[in-house]
């Protein structure tokens, strides 16, 4: 088996055995559901319901707030309680629609109506994806209809399904590969119908042999589809890294995958596309892995978006030990939260409960071992970038290509002196980008 990969990266114990054997369980929420308006990158969605309104399952409760934005669809039927600010997992407050569940799951008209995608025009397909509020479900949350609306002069050669799931612990995509591979292949075929010249590639890390076999089986003899095993290495699932590994094309921070003739979609996103286009079901649920050494029964839940996370943890048997750290997403790029009273988002792939706070060792002086250079998938020089970032020398930071950092955290992970490299670099990068935005706004 030839495994494609990239230069750099780190080998991390993947810890997926905790939850990889747990079949997806459908979860019915008991409490209120909170739909945050900022579940995606871009402009927040704008609520189109008022407190007191009755909403149905599948009803749009918020419209996109701009071109790069996504709609939000109710995942239950019930009454709108409030439209007010609510805490999100990143510590921010965002506008949210709170719905009291009536447990009837009454659907809107046309919900679940099957359609034949081959009879649909590209505009209709993209329209269906937009109406369903689909965003990249791997973590970044880029609105999918924007990704699919490629300018007509750009030729797309590859539609890449990102099934790397390179973060440790997370198993939601793996379970979907085992249980719903057919649907993902259908999603891929729908996307391929938009780009006539493109071929579809499923890039899957080799630590999921059963997943690779299932997807291969689902692909059948379709010569446009292929499954490529990738070496198990973090951050194999980073978009730029994925494109390089599969196509040898390279993009930088100022380019979109489309500039290299690629569209990259997460495995869950493909399933959401198939659901929305062929089965008439908008994005109202997602798979959430609840795992870690502090939870009783690590599980994979099919949870409605808006479900309270504390409820999900309860459903996973509650705490085995009191956790010291709770992370939304994987341990390498996820966000640590200070409360469980936050809702499941479209991008919440994992809730990781750790018994010990493992990652705050005291940083020491750099010994210049150069390990951070060897692991950097973007081929940067983290040790120099950190120095310029700490000195607030943002001009030099940009000159040394600091903005190319994808924030994967490999440099911090590997550093024997435990220096907080990616933390400094990310902070400087955000500052530089904010300054640029300000300067652009002035013009």
């Amino acid at each position, binding site marked *: 088996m030839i495994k494609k990969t990239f230069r750099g990266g780190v080998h991390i114990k993947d810890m997926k055995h905790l939850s990889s054997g747990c079949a997806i369980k459908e979860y019915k929420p008991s409490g209120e559901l909170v739909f945050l308006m900022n579940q995606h990158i871009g402009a927040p969605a704008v609520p189109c319901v008022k407190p007191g309104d009755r909403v149905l399952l599948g009803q749009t409760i918020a419209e996109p707030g701009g071109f790069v934005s996504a709609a939000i669809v109710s995942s239950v039927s019930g009454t709108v309680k409030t439209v007010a600010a609510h805490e999100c997992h990143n510590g921010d407050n965002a506008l949210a629609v709170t719905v009291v569940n009536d447990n009837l799951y009454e659907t809107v008209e046309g919900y679940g109506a099957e359609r034949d995608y081959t009879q649909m025009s590209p505009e209709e397909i993209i329209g269906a994806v937009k109406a369903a509020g689909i965003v990249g479900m791997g973590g970044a949350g880029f609105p999918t209809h924007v990704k699919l609306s490629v300018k007509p002069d750009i030729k797309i050669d590859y539609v890449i399904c990102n099934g790397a799931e390179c973060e440790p612990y997370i198993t939601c995509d793996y379970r979907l590969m085992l249980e719903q591979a057919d649907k993902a292949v259908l999603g891929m075929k729908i996307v391929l119908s938009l780009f006539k010249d493109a071929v579809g590639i499923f890039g899957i890390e080799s630590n999921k042999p059963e997943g690779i076999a299932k997807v291969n089986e689902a692909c059948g003899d379709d010569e446009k589809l292929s499954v490529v095993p990738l070496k198990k290495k973090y951050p194999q699932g980073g978009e730029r890294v994925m494109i390089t590994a599969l196509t040898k094309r*390279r993009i*930088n921070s*100022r380019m979109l995958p489309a500039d290299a003739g690629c569209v990259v979609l997460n495995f869950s996103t493909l399933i959401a596309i198939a659901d929305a286009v062929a089965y008439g079901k908008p994005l109202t649920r997602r798979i959430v892995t609840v795992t870690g050494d502090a939870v009783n029964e690590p599980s994979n839940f099919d949870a409605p978006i808006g479900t309270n996370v504390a409820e999900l943890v309860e459903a996973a048997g509650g705490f085995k030990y009191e956790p010291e750290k709770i992370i939304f997403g994987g341990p390498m790029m996820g966000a*640590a939260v200070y*409360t469980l009273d936050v809702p499941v988002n479209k991008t919440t792939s994992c809730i990781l409960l750790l018994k010990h*706070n493992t990652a705050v060792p005291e940083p*020491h002086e750099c010994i*210049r071992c150069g390990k951070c250079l060897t692991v950097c998938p973007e081929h940067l020089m983290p040790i120099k970038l950190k120095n310029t970032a700490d000195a607030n020398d943002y001009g030099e930071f940009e000159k040394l290509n600091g903005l190319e950092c994808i924030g994967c955290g490999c440099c911090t992970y590997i550093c024997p002196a435990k220096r907080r490299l990616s933390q400094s670099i990310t902070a400087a990068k955000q500052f530089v980008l904010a300054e640029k935005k300000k300067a652009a706004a002035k013009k």
Partner: protein
Amino acid sequence: MKTLNVSISPHIRSSKTTSKVMLDVIIAMSPAMIFGYFYFGWYALLISVLSVSSCVLTEFVYEKLMKLPVTIGDLSAVVTGLVLAMCLYSTAPWWIPVVGGVFAILVVKLIFGGIGQNIMNPALTARCFLLLSFSRIMTTYPTLTDAVSSATPLSLAAQGQPVSYAEMFLGTHSGSIGETSAIAILIGAAYLLIRRVISPRIPLCVIGSTVAFVALFTLMKGETVTLNYLAVHLTGGGLLAGAVFMATDYTTSPVTSWGRIIYGITIGLITAVIRCFGGSFEGISFAIITANLLTPIIEKLTYPKPLGTYGRKAEKK
């Protein structure tokens, strides 16, 4: 519920620490050093003990006096002391390793800011300092009762005499404490490579280019190059130990991959020039500390190209 900890990602770290890395280096050096103790006698062991303890003690006392956090736990001072002992002769009087250790740690390392900040390899700089200040003491080869000869292979080769391969490989000839046995050094090198403490770039470039340049310069002088002659240059004069343990010193070698190649070849070139045209066989030490000084500029010239810059064509479209 306990208070939850919040920090920026990543939330997991590798188990490698600075002291574990330094411990690996110490383990890798031990075969060569232990061979030296057996071959040159207990006095060689005393020299290493003195050298290591003076290095560690200097660091401890300096940091206490300056009210700095004490960093002897990271074991880097132990490594410095061992490297210094490795390249001393077992004939050195007891105060040579002590003076060398104090000089290495105080002048070369601590005054420049401690671990990771020094611009030259502390142990090698101390060795060169000792060599220049006490040249007669420092160039007295140990005379061995049971050994074939008391001359080092390089001095034999300079007189045009062949040296036995077995002697070179096992290291049963005169020389510095830890630098004579090729096999012991290669075992250490293999350990460092397996543990991924060093990358093979620097040692291979140093060794390869030294041998190549020595052959070239010897031919230029109009002398014949024999295999035996090259083998002597490969195993003699501390080239192997220098390439594996000293040129690869983290702090003073470039971190970029092309930089490491350029740095290695620079060391090889300077070593060959000193060996062929100069009077000293200590070429490798001088070559390494000279190349150390070029490290910042080599790094600047070889700044890595980020992944996406190869895609400029697509950007223009």
